[in-house]
């Protein structure tokens, strides 16, 4: 290992982030390397300097003037929750965005029926996942802001894509068997509908706020895609597709305010809601794993499905909330089955 690598380890060591074995090995190197030894001493001294820098102190009337503002009825400053999430027609198709959107569509489309065996880790960090983006795809952390951004981009991109393929779709509609055409379109439609639904759900739950016209645009997409999926014959499908392709992608330009910064709150609501659905085909098991790989009791369910995402707590422990989606299988036991992939990942 190069001295640079050792020095990055020393930075971790300063914060007590290394195991005792690794720390011992690191200190052995420090004892034998003048460069790293000097770096270590200087790192500690620099930290002492930084920690001795005086703190700012709020003024003596901070509390009283704050309560004056509160009692005067002053509301929340608009900028408090603003994490601008511009959605534009120039959406680049990011693998990470697509993979997370695929996970999103699973989250919001549980009732749709059979789902392919797929594991998604939509947590942050550098964990690699094997998903439809291919191995090595990094998924973005699903904070409310990124969830809204991914959803909005998926809708804008999906609508744009359908508009551009309008002519070829019409030709295929005239010539291809309907079931085949439906099957091919279904994944994209589900992603569109799931993402639009996600925006509506987050808006209803006051997780995000958006202008009325932007909200209406997402509602329209959800409604029209439903019509496409529910079309009984070729004529109905044609009409619904035409409605869909008439939606202008620039309707999705706007700013979305993130009202809820609490990722835990958002996902607790989301998953507890689905855990109660008791779908006989697809259930939901929420497993909470500590970082040392011990299982803690999760929410009970019919035991056949798990999903993965990462949750960070403010306490001394970091929990990884892991969930995976798959079919029910005979012999599944609630809460006891530990998927092998889950074990290997940790």
């Amino acid at each position: 290992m190069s001295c640079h690598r050792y020095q990055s380890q020393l930075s971790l060591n300063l914060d007590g982030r290394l195991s005792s074995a690794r720390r011992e090995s690191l200190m052995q190197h420090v004892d034998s390397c003048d460069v790293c030894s000097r770096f270590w001493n200087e790192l500690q001294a620099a930290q002492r300097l930084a920690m001795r820098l005086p703190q700012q102190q709020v003024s003596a009337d901070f509390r009283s003037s704050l309560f004056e503002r509160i009692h005067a009825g002053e509301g929340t400053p608009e900028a408090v929750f603003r994490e601008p999430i511009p959605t534009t027609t120039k959406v680049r198709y990011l693998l990470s965005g697509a993979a997370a959107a695929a996970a999103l569509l699973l989250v919001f489309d549980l009732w749709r029926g059979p789902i392919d065996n797929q594991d998604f880790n939509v947590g942050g960090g550098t964990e690699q996942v094997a998903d439809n983006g291919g191995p090595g795809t990094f998924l973005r952390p699903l904070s409310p802001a990124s969830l809204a951004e991914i959803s909005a981009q998926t809708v804008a991109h999906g609508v744009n894509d359908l508009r551009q393929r309008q002519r070829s779709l019409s030709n295929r509609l005239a010539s291809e068997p309907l079931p085949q055409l439906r099957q091919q379109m279904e994944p994209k439609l589900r992603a569109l509908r799931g993402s639009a639904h996600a925006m509506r759900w987050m808006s209803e739950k006051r997780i995000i706020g958006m202008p009325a016209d932007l909200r209406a645009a997402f509602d329209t997409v959800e409604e029209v895609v439903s019509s496409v999926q529910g079309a009984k014959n070729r004529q109905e499908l044609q009409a619904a597709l035409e409605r869909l392709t008439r939606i202008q992608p620039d309707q999705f330009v706007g700013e979305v305010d993130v009202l809820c910064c609490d990722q835990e709150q958002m996902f607790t609501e989301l998953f507890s809601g689905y855990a109660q659905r008791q779908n006989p085909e697809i259930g939901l098991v929420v497993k909470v794993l500590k970082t040392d790989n011990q299982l803690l009791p999760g929410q009970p369910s019919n035991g056949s499905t798990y999903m993965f995402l990462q949750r960070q707590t403010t306490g001394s422990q970091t929990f990884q909330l892991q969930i995976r989606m798959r079919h029910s299988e005979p012999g599944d036991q609630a809460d006891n089955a530990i998927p092998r992939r889950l074990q290997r990942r940790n």
Partner: protein
Amino acid sequence: MTTANRSLPEPDSLELVAFNRAMSEHADGLKSFAARMLSDNLLAEDVTQDAFLALYRHLSQVPASAFRPWLYRVTRNLCLDHLRRRKFKLRLFRDVEKDDDRPHTPEDLHGDRPDQVAETREAQEAIDEAVDKLPPRFREAFVLCEMQGLSYEDAAAILGIPVKTVSTRLFRARQRFRAAVTEHLQL
């Protein structure tokens, strides 16, 4: 500063107790963080107050255990908003503010010899400057973790980045800070 009134329930007594405690525990740290981001102590106090105002209005939605990272996250958003809208500020006034508003170190108050006091102040200014000169992304991680003592996980939640990114930025910040203050290090 624009405001938006949202109709949210008034906090109950338990929530108020938690709120007051949070103010006692975190106000100074938040102001320090904001001051580092904005390089403006007066504005930092306004931003800190805005953050607590927001918390008060959303007490029913934020668990007490999450106050600290929530407040830091909100403070950061407010600072970023100010930075985006900031107009050019003359350096002259910034220097004046520094002299008036910078908190005093214990050494300043000991009544030591003027030359010693000047030397200490000079060292402190150099160290201050070393922090302020860190690139913004490194500075955030450095201030939160090194100076405010937040965990990597809390900093990651506040900044909206993975934990590993926090550790990388902190390491790089430490490298630069160490290099900038070498002559002031007491080994």
